[in-house]
Protein backbone atom coordinates (compact mmCIF):
# COMPACT_ATOMS: atom_id res chain seq x y z
CA UNK A 1 0.00 0.00 0.00
CA UNK A 2 1.16 3.51 -0.74
CA UNK A 3 1.79 5.35 2.47
CA UNK A 4 0.60 8.81 1.58
CA UNK A 5 1.12 10.10 5.09
CA UNK A 6 4.87 10.04 4.61
CA UNK A 7 4.57 11.61 1.19
CA UNK A 8 4.79 15.20 2.36
CA UNK A 9 5.01 18.31 0.26
CA UNK A 10 8.10 20.27 1.26
CA UNK A 11 8.33 23.93 0.38
CA UNK A 12 11.26 26.01 1.62
CA UNK A 13 12.02 23.32 4.25
CA UNK A 14 8.46 23.41 5.57
CA UNK A 15 6.47 20.20 5.51
CA UNK A 16 2.82 19.99 4.47
CA UNK A 17 0.58 16.93 4.35
CA UNK A 18 -1.89 18.37 1.87
CA UNK A 19 -0.89 18.99 -1.72
CA UNK A 20 -3.86 21.23 -2.35
CA UNK A 21 -3.41 24.96 -1.88
CA UNK A 22 -6.56 27.04 -2.04
CA UNK A 23 -7.28 30.69 -2.65
CA UNK A 24 -9.52 32.68 -0.33
CA UNK A 25 -11.05 35.01 -2.92
CA UNK A 26 -14.47 35.10 -4.61
CA UNK A 27 -16.43 33.38 -1.80
CA UNK A 28 -19.87 34.67 -0.83
CA UNK A 29 -18.79 35.18 2.75
CA UNK A 30 -15.83 34.62 5.01
CA UNK A 31 -17.60 31.80 6.81
CA UNK A 32 -18.23 30.05 3.49
CA UNK A 33 -14.56 30.48 2.64
CA UNK A 34 -13.45 29.10 6.01
CA UNK A 35 -15.69 26.06 5.71
CA UNK A 36 -14.56 25.30 2.15
CA UNK A 37 -10.92 25.50 3.26
CA UNK A 38 -11.59 23.09 6.10
CA UNK A 39 -13.26 20.61 3.76
CA UNK A 40 -10.47 20.90 1.20
CA UNK A 41 -7.93 19.87 3.83
CA UNK A 42 -5.60 22.62 2.55
CA UNK A 43 -2.84 23.73 4.88
CA UNK A 44 -1.79 26.71 2.76
CA UNK A 45 -4.14 29.46 1.59
CA UNK A 46 -3.36 32.42 -0.60
CA UNK A 47 -4.36 35.85 0.65
CA UNK A 48 -4.28 39.33 -0.83
CA UNK A 49 -2.86 42.49 0.71
CA UNK A 50 -5.26 45.40 0.59
CA UNK A 51 -6.09 48.64 2.36
CA UNK A 52 -7.93 48.38 5.68
CA UNK A 53 -11.40 49.89 5.44
CA UNK A 54 -10.99 52.76 7.87
CA UNK A 55 -14.59 53.96 7.64
CA UNK A 56 -16.13 50.62 8.60
CA UNK A 57 -14.31 49.46 11.69
CA UNK A 58 -16.63 46.52 12.28
CA UNK A 59 -15.96 44.84 8.98
CA UNK A 60 -15.01 41.19 9.60
CA UNK A 61 -11.34 40.32 9.19
CA UNK A 62 -10.02 37.26 7.39
CA UNK A 63 -7.82 36.42 10.36
CA UNK A 64 -10.92 36.13 12.56
CA UNK A 65 -12.17 33.31 10.33
CA UNK A 66 -8.98 31.58 9.25
CA UNK A 67 -6.43 31.23 12.02
CA UNK A 68 -2.94 31.95 10.64
CA UNK A 69 -1.49 29.82 13.44
CA UNK A 70 -3.28 26.77 12.05
CA UNK A 71 -3.28 27.52 8.31
CA UNK A 72 -0.24 28.90 6.50
CA UNK A 73 -1.07 32.22 4.90
CA UNK A 74 0.57 32.68 1.54
CA UNK A 75 0.51 36.40 0.74
CA UNK A 76 0.04 36.92 -2.94
CA UNK A 77 0.71 39.88 -5.21
CA UNK A 78 -2.38 39.41 -7.35
CA UNK A 79 -3.33 42.68 -8.95
CA UNK A 80 0.27 43.88 -9.29
CA UNK A 81 1.36 44.76 -12.81
CA UNK A 82 5.03 45.55 -12.24
CA UNK A 83 7.95 44.61 -10.05
CA UNK A 84 7.76 47.76 -7.94
CA UNK A 85 4.14 47.12 -6.91
CA UNK A 86 4.81 43.45 -6.24
CA UNK A 87 7.86 44.14 -4.06
CA UNK A 88 5.99 46.82 -2.11
CA UNK A 89 3.09 44.43 -1.51
CA UNK A 90 5.25 41.57 -0.28
CA UNK A 91 7.40 43.74 1.96
CA UNK A 92 4.18 44.96 3.57
CA UNK A 93 2.90 41.39 3.83
CA UNK A 94 6.06 40.39 5.66
CA UNK A 95 5.57 43.30 8.02
CA UNK A 96 2.04 42.22 8.96
CA UNK A 97 3.40 39.27 10.83
CA UNK A 98 6.70 37.92 9.71
CA UNK A 99 5.56 36.11 6.61
CA UNK A 100 8.50 35.10 4.48
CA UNK A 101 6.83 32.45 2.37
CA UNK A 102 5.09 34.40 -0.38
CA UNK A 103 3.54 33.98 -3.78
CA UNK A 104 4.81 36.28 -6.48
CA UNK A 105 2.40 37.05 -9.27
CA UNK A 106 3.16 39.92 -11.62
CA UNK A 107 0.52 40.23 -14.29
CA UNK A 108 1.14 41.62 -17.74
CA UNK A 109 -2.26 41.95 -19.34
CA UNK A 110 -5.55 42.95 -17.75
CA UNK A 111 -7.62 40.77 -20.06
CA UNK A 112 -5.81 37.45 -20.24
CA UNK A 113 -4.00 37.90 -16.90
CA UNK A 114 -0.88 36.22 -18.21
CA UNK A 115 2.20 36.83 -16.10
CA UNK A 116 4.77 39.43 -17.16
CA UNK A 117 7.78 37.15 -16.96
CA UNK A 118 10.40 39.90 -17.28
CA UNK A 119 9.00 41.72 -14.24
CA UNK A 120 8.45 38.40 -12.47
CA UNK A 121 12.07 37.36 -12.98
CA UNK A 122 13.37 40.73 -11.75
CA UNK A 123 11.18 40.53 -8.65
CA UNK A 124 12.22 36.95 -7.87
CA UNK A 125 15.89 37.97 -7.79
CA UNK A 126 15.23 40.86 -5.41
CA UNK A 127 12.94 38.89 -3.11
CA UNK A 128 15.33 35.95 -2.85
CA UNK A 129 18.13 38.35 -1.91
CA UNK A 130 15.90 39.90 0.76
CA UNK A 131 15.37 36.51 2.36
CA UNK A 132 11.88 35.80 1.08
CA UNK A 133 10.84 32.27 0.20
CA UNK A 134 9.25 32.87 -3.17
CA UNK A 135 6.70 30.70 -4.89
CA UNK A 136 6.47 32.06 -8.39
CA UNK A 137 3.44 32.17 -10.65
CA UNK A 138 4.69 31.80 -14.20
CA UNK A 139 3.95 30.81 -17.74
CA UNK A 140 4.27 27.16 -18.70
CA UNK A 141 7.59 27.93 -20.36
CA UNK A 142 10.41 25.54 -19.43
CA UNK A 143 13.14 28.10 -20.20
CA UNK A 144 11.58 30.76 -18.00
CA UNK A 145 10.97 28.18 -15.27
CA UNK A 146 14.69 27.36 -15.35
CA UNK A 147 15.59 31.02 -15.11
CA UNK A 148 13.31 31.46 -12.10
CA UNK A 149 14.95 28.47 -10.45
CA UNK A 150 18.39 29.97 -11.07
CA UNK A 151 17.20 33.28 -9.62
CA UNK A 152 16.31 31.74 -6.26
CA UNK A 153 12.67 30.70 -6.57
CA UNK A 154 11.48 28.22 -3.95
CA UNK A 155 8.61 26.82 -6.01
CA UNK A 156 7.64 27.00 -9.66
CA UNK A 157 3.95 27.64 -10.25
CA UNK A 158 3.04 27.48 -13.92
CA UNK A 159 -0.48 28.26 -15.04
CA UNK A 160 -2.72 25.54 -16.42
CA UNK A 161 -4.68 28.19 -18.33
CA UNK A 162 -5.57 31.86 -17.74
CA UNK A 163 -6.54 32.72 -14.15
CA UNK A 164 -10.19 31.99 -13.42
CA UNK A 165 -10.78 30.50 -16.90
CA UNK A 166 -11.57 26.97 -15.75
CA UNK A 167 -10.03 25.57 -18.95
CA UNK A 168 -7.80 23.00 -17.28
CA UNK A 169 -4.23 22.10 -18.29
CA UNK A 170 -3.60 23.31 -21.83
CA UNK A 171 -0.03 22.25 -22.29
CA UNK A 172 0.73 18.94 -20.65
CA UNK A 173 3.98 18.53 -22.55
CA UNK A 174 5.45 21.77 -21.19
CA UNK A 175 4.41 20.86 -17.67
CA UNK A 176 6.12 17.48 -18.05
CA UNK A 177 9.27 19.09 -19.42
CA UNK A 178 9.34 21.47 -16.45
CA UNK A 179 8.74 18.50 -14.13
CA UNK A 180 11.68 16.62 -15.59
CA UNK A 181 14.07 19.53 -15.34
CA UNK A 182 13.40 20.70 -11.79
CA UNK A 183 13.55 19.28 -8.30
CA UNK A 184 11.82 22.36 -6.92
CA UNK A 185 8.20 22.00 -5.87
CA UNK A 186 6.11 22.29 -9.04
CA UNK A 187 2.62 23.54 -8.38
CA UNK A 188 -0.05 24.13 -10.98
CA UNK A 189 -1.51 27.54 -10.36
CA UNK A 190 -4.54 28.99 -12.10
CA UNK A 191 -6.98 27.85 -14.73
CA UNK A 192 -8.33 24.61 -13.28
CA UNK A 193 -12.06 24.09 -13.70
CA UNK A 194 -12.97 20.79 -12.11
CA UNK A 195 -11.56 18.15 -9.81
CA UNK A 196 -10.27 15.92 -12.61
CA UNK A 197 -8.02 18.77 -13.79
CA UNK A 198 -6.23 18.52 -10.45
CA UNK A 199 -5.85 14.76 -10.87
CA UNK A 200 -4.27 15.30 -14.30
CA UNK A 201 -1.84 17.82 -12.84
CA UNK A 202 -0.81 15.39 -10.13
CA UNK A 203 -0.50 12.53 -12.63
CA UNK A 204 1.88 14.67 -14.68
CA UNK A 205 4.11 14.67 -11.63
CA UNK A 206 3.28 18.05 -10.16
CA UNK A 207 3.82 18.39 -6.42
CA UNK A 208 0.60 20.23 -5.83
CA UNK A 209 -2.13 22.42 -7.23
CA UNK A 210 -3.51 25.81 -6.32
CA UNK A 211 -7.24 26.30 -6.80
CA UNK A 212 -9.49 29.23 -6.09
CA UNK A 213 -12.24 30.01 -8.59
CA UNK A 214 -13.09 26.38 -9.39
CA UNK A 215 -14.05 25.84 -5.74
CA UNK A 216 -15.31 29.29 -4.75
CA UNK A 217 -17.54 29.69 -7.78
CA UNK A 218 -18.79 26.10 -8.05
CA UNK A 219 -22.54 25.74 -7.52
CA UNK A 220 -21.70 23.78 -4.37
CA UNK A 221 -18.35 25.07 -3.09
CA UNK A 222 -18.18 22.71 -0.10
CA UNK A 223 -18.72 19.61 -2.21
CA UNK A 224 -16.23 20.89 -4.79
CA UNK A 225 -13.66 21.53 -2.06
CA UNK A 226 -13.98 17.91 -1.02
CA UNK A 227 -13.85 16.77 -4.65
CA UNK A 228 -10.58 18.63 -5.19
CA UNK A 229 -9.13 17.19 -2.00
CA UNK A 230 -9.88 13.66 -3.21
CA UNK A 231 -8.78 14.42 -6.77
CA UNK A 232 -5.35 15.59 -5.63
CA UNK A 233 -4.90 12.51 -3.46
CA UNK A 234 -6.04 10.24 -6.33
CA UNK A 235 -3.72 11.90 -8.82
CA UNK A 236 -0.73 11.72 -6.52
CA UNK A 237 -1.43 8.08 -5.71
CA UNK A 238 -1.81 7.29 -9.41
CA UNK A 239 1.46 9.06 -10.26
CA UNK A 240 3.37 7.25 -7.53
CA UNK A 241 1.90 3.90 -8.58
CA UNK A 242 3.47 3.99 -12.06
CA UNK A 243 1.01 3.85 -14.88
CA UNK A 244 1.06 1.17 -17.61
CA UNK A 245 2.58 1.84 -21.02
CA UNK A 246 0.27 3.07 -23.74
CA UNK A 247 -0.22 0.68 -26.67
CA UNK A 248 -2.24 1.11 -29.81
CA UNK A 249 -3.84 -2.34 -29.97
CA UNK A 250 -6.01 -4.22 -27.51
CA UNK A 251 -4.52 -6.51 -24.88
CA UNK A 252 -7.06 -8.86 -23.27
CA UNK A 253 -7.34 -8.87 -19.50
CA UNK A 254 -8.41 -12.53 -19.36
CA UNK A 255 -6.04 -15.38 -20.26
CA UNK A 256 -6.63 -16.95 -23.71
CA UNK A 257 -5.57 -20.36 -22.41
CA UNK A 258 -8.43 -22.61 -21.41
CA UNK A 259 -11.08 -20.91 -23.50
CA UNK A 260 -13.93 -23.41 -24.01
Amino acid sequence: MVNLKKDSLIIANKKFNSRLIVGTGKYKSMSECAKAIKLSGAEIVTVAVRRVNISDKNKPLLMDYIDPKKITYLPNTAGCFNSKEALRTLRLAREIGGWKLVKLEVLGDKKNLFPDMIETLKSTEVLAKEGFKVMVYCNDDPLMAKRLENSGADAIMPLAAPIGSGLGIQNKINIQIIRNQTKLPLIIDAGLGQASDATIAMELGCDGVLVNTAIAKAKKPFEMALAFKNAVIAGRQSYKSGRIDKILMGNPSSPSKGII
Partner: protein
Amino acid sequence: MKKIKKIKIKINGKIKSINQDSNLSLVLKNLKIPLNKVAIELNEEIIDKKKISKIKLNKNDKIEIVHFIGGG
Protein backbone atom coordinates in the same frame (compact mmCIF):
# COMPACT_ATOMS: atom_id res chain seq x y z
CA MET B 1 -8.16 77.82 26.23
CA LYS B 2 -5.55 77.39 23.59
CA LYS B 3 -6.98 76.14 20.34
CA ILE B 4 -5.31 72.96 19.06
CA LYS B 5 -4.07 73.40 15.55
CA LYS B 6 -5.21 70.79 13.02
CA ILE B 7 -3.29 69.36 10.10
CA LYS B 8 -4.49 67.36 7.14
CA ILE B 9 -3.05 63.96 6.31
CA LYS B 10 -4.10 61.17 3.98
CA ILE B 11 -4.94 57.71 5.34
CA ASN B 12 -5.67 54.99 2.80
CA GLY B 13 -6.44 57.63 0.22
CA LYS B 14 -8.86 59.56 2.46
CA ILE B 15 -8.10 63.02 3.81
CA LYS B 16 -8.23 63.18 7.62
CA SER B 17 -7.85 66.11 9.91
CA ILE B 18 -5.78 65.40 13.01
CA ASN B 19 -4.30 67.39 15.87
CA GLN B 20 -0.95 68.82 14.96
CA ASP B 21 0.88 67.18 17.84
CA SER B 22 -0.56 63.70 17.21
CA ASN B 23 1.78 60.80 16.85
CA LEU B 24 1.12 57.82 14.59
CA SER B 25 0.18 55.57 17.49
CA LEU B 26 -2.61 57.90 18.58
CA VAL B 27 -4.04 58.18 15.07
CA LEU B 28 -4.09 54.38 14.67
CA LYS B 29 -5.67 54.00 18.11
CA ASN B 30 -8.46 56.41 17.19
CA LEU B 31 -9.14 54.38 14.05
CA LYS B 32 -9.23 51.20 16.19
CA ILE B 33 -6.62 49.52 13.99
CA PRO B 34 -5.65 46.04 15.26
CA LEU B 35 -1.89 46.49 15.10
CA ASN B 36 -1.07 42.79 15.10
CA LYS B 37 -3.04 42.30 11.89
CA VAL B 38 -1.79 45.17 9.76
CA ALA B 39 1.27 46.71 8.16
CA ILE B 40 1.78 50.45 7.95
CA GLU B 41 3.50 52.68 5.46
CA LEU B 42 4.28 56.32 6.01
CA ASN B 43 5.07 58.15 2.79
CA GLU B 44 5.79 54.82 1.09
CA GLU B 45 8.19 53.65 3.77
CA ILE B 46 7.32 50.70 5.96
CA ILE B 47 7.06 51.62 9.61
CA ASP B 48 8.26 49.43 12.46
CA LYS B 49 5.07 48.95 14.48
CA LYS B 50 7.04 49.05 17.72
CA LYS B 51 8.12 52.61 17.04
CA ILE B 52 4.80 54.21 16.12
CA SER B 53 4.45 56.18 19.36
CA LYS B 54 7.67 58.01 18.49
CA ILE B 55 6.58 59.02 15.02
CA LYS B 56 5.25 62.54 14.74
CA LEU B 57 3.02 63.30 11.80
CA ASN B 58 3.38 66.23 9.46
CA LYS B 59 1.04 68.03 7.11
CA ASN B 60 0.30 66.05 3.92
CA ASP B 61 1.76 62.82 5.26
CA LYS B 62 0.45 59.77 3.48
CA ILE B 63 -0.33 56.71 5.56
CA GLU B 64 -1.25 53.34 4.15
CA ILE B 65 -2.66 50.66 6.45
CA VAL B 66 -3.01 47.23 4.86
CA HIS B 67 -4.12 43.80 5.96
CA PHE B 68 -4.86 40.39 4.51
CA ILE B 69 -8.12 39.81 2.72
CA GLY B 70 -9.44 36.93 0.64
CA GLY B 71 -7.58 36.50 -2.63
CA GLY B 72 -6.38 33.94 -5.13
